[in-house]
């Protein structure tokens, strides 16, 4: 059985207009990698949105980062500060990986 390592999965669901900023934040905070996933539609306190809309700015995108607990928390807090005024969702959960050094 190969050894596994516990990491944190950080997910940030953010308006399209802000993706670039979040990615540069992640980079400047030293994230090793990230993956951006598309979202189709959604709703929350700030109302409903859908990807097919004429106004791409309201659409949302999910940004996934896997990192060591410390790093993940740091990234999460930095993202939280950056996005304080925005309709966003930041999630943290546990995840296991095989390569300890990749994150």
């Amino acid at each position, binding site marked *: 059985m190969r050894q596994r390592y516990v990491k944190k999965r950080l997910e940030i669901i953010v*308006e399209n207009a802000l993706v670039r900023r979040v990615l540069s934040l992640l980079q400047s905070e030293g994230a090793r990698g990230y993956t951006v996933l598309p979202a189709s539609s959604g709703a929350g306190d700030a109302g409903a949105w859908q990807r*097919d*809309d004429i106004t791409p*700015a309201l659409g949302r995108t999910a940004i996934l980062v896997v990192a060591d607990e410390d790093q993940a928390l740091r990234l999460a807090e930095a993202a939280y500060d950056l996005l304080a005024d925005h309709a966003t969702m930041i999630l943290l959960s546990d995840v296991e990986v095989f390569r300890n050094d990749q994150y």
Partner: protein
Amino acid sequence: MPFLDAALTNLLTPMILAFALGVAAGLVRSDLSIPEAIGKAMAIYLMFAIGLKGGVAVNEQGIDSRLVLALAAGGVISFLLPFVAVALIRLLSPATDIATRAAVAAHYGSISVVTFLTAAEFLRLSGVAFEGFMVAVVAIMETPAIVAGLWIARRGGANPSLADSGALFREVFLNGSVVLLVGTFIIGWIVGPAGASEVKAFFDTPFKGVLTLFLLDMGLLAAARVRGVGGISVGLVVFGLVMPALNAVLGGLAGYAIGLSAGGAFLLAVLAASASYIAVPAAMRLALPQANPGVYITLSLAITFPFNVIVGIPLYLAGVQALY
């Protein structure tokens, strides 16, 4: 009654009927929808096509001082209209918070490319000529209103997040529509009628059909926003109907004053009357996140756009023609 005739002529084109079909399909909640990628591709096609056409027209007609005047007028109008708008909102809907007020104002200073295209087709149908360089005016009017809107917000105490204002202004001034309109305008200018004839069969001949399909999509999207109307005040709805008419008067007069043809003045009126729903919402989400997008998107897309396309366009032309 020539106005009613004109209104009917406008209404009974495949384009406007396709818009109506989209609205109807959306209102009955049909699952008809046009994929996002297709909507985006049609928008790119339409902007490429009119940019090119405008540039070719300038290549043929040469530049004269009116081009410079029209660009200047467009920029000034786009910057000033938000001040008119914000005053009107304060009057009609005093409860609206300052951030939302400023954001709405920015939308009405900026423009809607599809409204412009529909108006230009209406001119062609009516046999009225216009200056080819008006396309450049479209590009120039996209963004000054954003600056005005943010300035209004800051003055009113709703601090826009300008922390990263370099990035913001790059994103605003280099947004896709502006780059595409300006870029293809320059291409058209360079290649002229001979060069453009190479791609005419793609960018010109099927143009109206693409616009028709695009208006079907606009109808679907406008209808999807109609539910939002319930969430905004009556005063704001009135604003969404009065503001375009008022802006059209200002735009038309400005066009007249700087010596545009009747067609050109009409298009300036339409640009003034139209409200943004692409570039400005993006900028507002970045810089004024406190403003309520439910208000500005609904006003722009579900009220002002249909009003302009169905009632406004023939009305503004009648008005401008009365002037000439």
